């Protein structure tokens, strides 16, 4: 309950989740949750399992009741509305297609539920199946479809009713990697073309970055950071976000001196400078993305013994020897030969690329 | 029911008995042959209490025999004897006289003789039937059981037909032997003739029975359930009830009594017989002799509030004074019973 002031009309967003709280069997899993999405945005809720992302999705969908707070969609307070009156479609992780109906009947379900005559469903169903390139499968039973085909049907079924909001719960997790990437591209352009506002729930940071305009990184029932993918990657707001989104070097450090915005820190491998706002003497965590680190001298330089050299095709990843809990990574473009385990090298990077987080002792 | 579980089993007898069991006979527990000191007796379900308390220990003491018994309806005993005719496992059967006649007709019984069963000579003459094909041992008497909280007594069988009794009486099915009493009384009341003639006036009996329908809550084939409803006061009278069941319940303090209405009462036809070709013939005759002997007769008659057939015994139930006790022509019953059952069921059907 951080923000109790009413939202002024100027602040009004398309979806406004405000002050939502939820407990399960006396354990509070979410409180004071605020979450806003603009019309036409594709947003991801990203976090590890148990972080509350699915809870938030279910509360928005109306499949679960919040203990407190409100949900407003397009200026309409839907907090107390049952799921079937919200006009919010959900694509489930398991797709939840109706096994007793054919592909076309599944897609027609939402229209029929809204009272559309059977004869009037044919055209929109055909159009929806065409959009997901499943026209040839209209009369097939669900059991005869592959995972990717089922997902397309689930999307068609969700979109044919013209939802005000589309929620997708781990929609790609059951697909193999190649298919997943294809489906992500397809779905993103489909949603964009139709101007659909959609929220993805995922634990896969690459997926979140691939499909979203903005990503809300969730941890323990809170949103740690809600930003566009590049900000999230370049300027993670917390060590949790930094760790969850991409890889990075991380070193335990202590602030030795401060000069304006510039901190001097001591690590197990030597001194480092970084922009920051911490008092001298305080404990800190220092991080830098691996692709920003290069061989040779930089504004910050550490002498590191190589623990491993991993050639990954498009890139080569160097792992430096570091104390327990620390990690040193350097990503070099292309295939690099001539570097061997046990060799000592200099790794350098810019002061401005160095991230510093205060650590509670 | 006591299951027979000791062995004495040969492969051949197993094959034979399983083939028999497979051949659609009633599922009898007696797949195994009895040992020489074991004897299998068929009896009525209501005998179970005194069979356990008196007969089994008595036979062990006097004959050294282990008695295994199966308590069920007379007609089920008959069916068991008929189905196992070629390889009987029952040696002795205690069942009702009309069923005895059917068993004699189907040639399932061996005669009881005074040589093998000396105690037979002490019986009342009318307790020995068809030259010893079976004997009565102890006989309960039957009248109308009533709930003493609801009725002060039943002076006449006409009470069953009284308007106050609407929906408050239960009578036995004709499948049960005690069902005959209501039929014969209906014959007497309907024809106006004395019992000796009236028992053949079956059309009059059925006409009178039809008038009983408004008063019937039910027709039972399981007596204990009907008697329970009498004890609970759900019904006021239970027709055809007999002393060996009703009077012990009265003695236990339940608000029931057995009435001997003025028109007369009936002697329950409890018979004992030897199964033709039954195992352990010698032990079987010994068993029958003991059942007819003074000591066991006195004990059973007291235990089951019944009238002993052995004239040297003075124990047991006293037949109410001044009331005629009837014994019907069981041969006539046996001859016509199937047809009566069918007619009765159709008449009583709702």
């Amino acid at each position, binding site marked *: 309950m951080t923000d109790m002031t009413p939202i002024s009309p100027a602040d009004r967003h398309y979806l406004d989740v405000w002050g939502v709280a939820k407990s399960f069997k006396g354990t509070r899993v979410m409180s004071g949750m605020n979450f806003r999405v603009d019309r036409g945005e594709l947003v991801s809720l990203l976090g590890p399992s148990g972080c509350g992302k699915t809870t938030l999705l279910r509360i928005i969908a109306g499949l679960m009741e919040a203990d407190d707070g409100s949900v407003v969609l397009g200026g309409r307070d839907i907090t107390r509305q049952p799921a*079937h009156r919200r006009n919010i479609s959900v694509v489930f992780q398991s797709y939840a297609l109706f096994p007793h109906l054919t592909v076309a009947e599944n897609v027609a379900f939402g229209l029929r539920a809204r009272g559309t005559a059977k004869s009037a469903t044919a055209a929109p169903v055909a159009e929806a199946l065409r959009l997901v390139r499943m026209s040839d499968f209209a009369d097939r039973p669900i059991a005869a479809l592959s995972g990717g085909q089922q997902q397309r049907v689930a999307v068609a079924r969700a979109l044919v009713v013209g939802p005000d909001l589309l929620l997708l719960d781990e929609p790609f997790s059951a697909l193999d990697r190649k298919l997943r990437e294809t489906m992500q591209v397809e779905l993103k352009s489909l949603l964009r073309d139709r101007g659909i506002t959609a929220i993805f729930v995922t634990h896969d940071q690459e997926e979140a970055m691939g499909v979203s305009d903005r990503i809300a990184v969730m941890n323990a029932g809170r949103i740690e950071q809600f930003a566009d993918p590049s900000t999230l990657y370049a300027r993670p707001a917390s060590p949790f976000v930094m760790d969850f989104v991409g890889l990075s070097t991380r070193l335990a450090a202590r602030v030795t001196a401060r000069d304006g915005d510039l901190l001097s820190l001591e690590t197990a491998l030597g001194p480092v400078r970084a922009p920051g706002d911490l008092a001298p003497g305080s404990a800190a965590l220092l991080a830098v993305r691996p692709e920003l680190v290069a061989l040779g001298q930089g504004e910050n330089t550490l002498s590191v013994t190589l623990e491993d050299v991993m050639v990954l095709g498009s890139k080569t990843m160097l792992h430096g020897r570091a104390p327990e809990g620390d990690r040193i990574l350097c990503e070099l473009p292309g295939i690099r030969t001539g570097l061997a385990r046990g060799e000592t090298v200099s790794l350098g990077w810019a002061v401005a690329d160095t991230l510093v987080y205060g650590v509670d002792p | 029911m006591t299951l027979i579980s000791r062995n004495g089993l040969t492969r051949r007898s197993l094959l034979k008995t399983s083939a028999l069991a497979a051949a659609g006979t009633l599922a009898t527990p007696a797949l195994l042959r009895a040992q020489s000191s074991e004897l299998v007796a068929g009896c009525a379900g209501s005998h179970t209490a005194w069979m356990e308390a008196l007969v089994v220990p008595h036979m062990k003491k006097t004959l050294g025999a282990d008695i295994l018994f199966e308590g069920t309806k007379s007609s089920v005993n008959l069916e068991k004897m008929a189905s196992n005719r070629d390889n009987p496992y029952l040696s002795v059967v205690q069942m009702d006289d009309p069923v005895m006649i059917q068993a004699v007709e189907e040639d399932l019984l061996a005669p009881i003789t005074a040589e093998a069963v000396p105690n037979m000579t002490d019986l009342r003459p009318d307790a020995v039937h068809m030259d010893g094909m079976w004997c009565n041992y102890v006989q309960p008497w039957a009248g109308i059981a009533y709930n003493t909280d609801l009725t002060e007594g039943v002076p006449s069988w006409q009470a069953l037909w009284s308007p106050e009794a609407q929906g408050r009486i239960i009578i036995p099915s004709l499948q049960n032997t005690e069902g005959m009493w209501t039929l014969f009384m209906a014959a007497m009341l309907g024809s106006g003739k004395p019992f000796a003639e009236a028992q053949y006036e079956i059309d009059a009996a059925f006409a009178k029975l039809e008038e009983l329908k408004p008063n019937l809550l039910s*027709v039972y084939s399981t007596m204990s*359930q009907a008697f329970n409803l009498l004890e609970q*006061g*759900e019904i006021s009278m239970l027709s055809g009830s007999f002393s060996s069941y009703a009077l012990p319940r009265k003695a236990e303090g339940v608000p029931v009594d057995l009435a001997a209405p003025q028109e007369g009462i009936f002697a329950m036809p409890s018979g004992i017989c030897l199964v033709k070709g039954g195992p352990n013939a010698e032990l079987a005759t010994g068993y029958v002799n003991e059942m007819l002997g003074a000591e066991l007769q006195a004990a059973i008659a007291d235990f089951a509030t019944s009238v002993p057939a052995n004239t040297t015994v003075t124990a047991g139930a006293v037949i109410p004074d001044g009331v005629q006790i009837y014994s019907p022509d069981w041969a006539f019953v046996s001859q016509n019973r199937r047809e009566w059952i069918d007619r009765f069921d159709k008449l009583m059907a709702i």
Partner: protein
Amino acid sequence: MTARVDRIALLAVPGLAYLAVVYALPLLLLLAKSVRTPDGLSLAEYGAFFADDYNMGVLARTLRVAALTTLLALLIAYPTAFAMARARGPWLTVFLVAMVLPMSLGVVVKAFAWSILFRANGFLNTALQGLGIITEPMRMLFTETALVVGAANVFLPFMVLPIYAVVRQMDSRLPEAAASLGASPWFRFFHVTLPLTLPGVVAGSAFTFSMAISMYVIPSLIVGERQQTLSMLIARSFLYLRNEPLGSTISAVLLAIAILVVVSSSVLARRLGARQ
């Protein structure tokens, strides 16, 4: 490959042999009796059976009671199965014990319990009078209503368990997906939940119906001899009328009904299953 299949098929031998000896053989002998007359094979017994109004009345009652018993058991079992599927931990145990434990209680004991419930001064009459719904005690003992209530009670587990098995397997996301597509609770029930649980309903109904048409002890105890069912008619034919051809004929009729129910329900279940 063939050898392995054959070996596995051997596992069915004890069961089949058992059924053949203790079930099929006696049954065939029984059926043979229904068509064998002194003059050779004949269907005369069947003709006589169907020509008798009393027998037709018994047949109609048997079918009516079985149908009503199945319906009542279904109405009670359906929500129960959902409650069980939702129950967790100790509650599920309570449900299962409550389902299974009464099965170990003999029908005779139950029949006595019901007579307490149905008596003129019994619980139901007292309650109905207390609520002012009736002024005079209603006759409930020895009525068809009491029989249906009692039989539904006995067969309830056989209705609940097949439905429970299907409900438990049902993806709980399906009704949620339907809700998110705009389906009202009624629409969800009739277009998703009911069709998906129908195989369980069919199986449970087939169990219950085939047991209810062949029940013997329950009607003997609850309605007595005045309202016979086919099974009581069979017992009466064998034991009291000592008319084996008649008993065998009625047995054959009962068996034919049971086979019809089982076959048609499995065809129905297969059709429903094929769609899923």
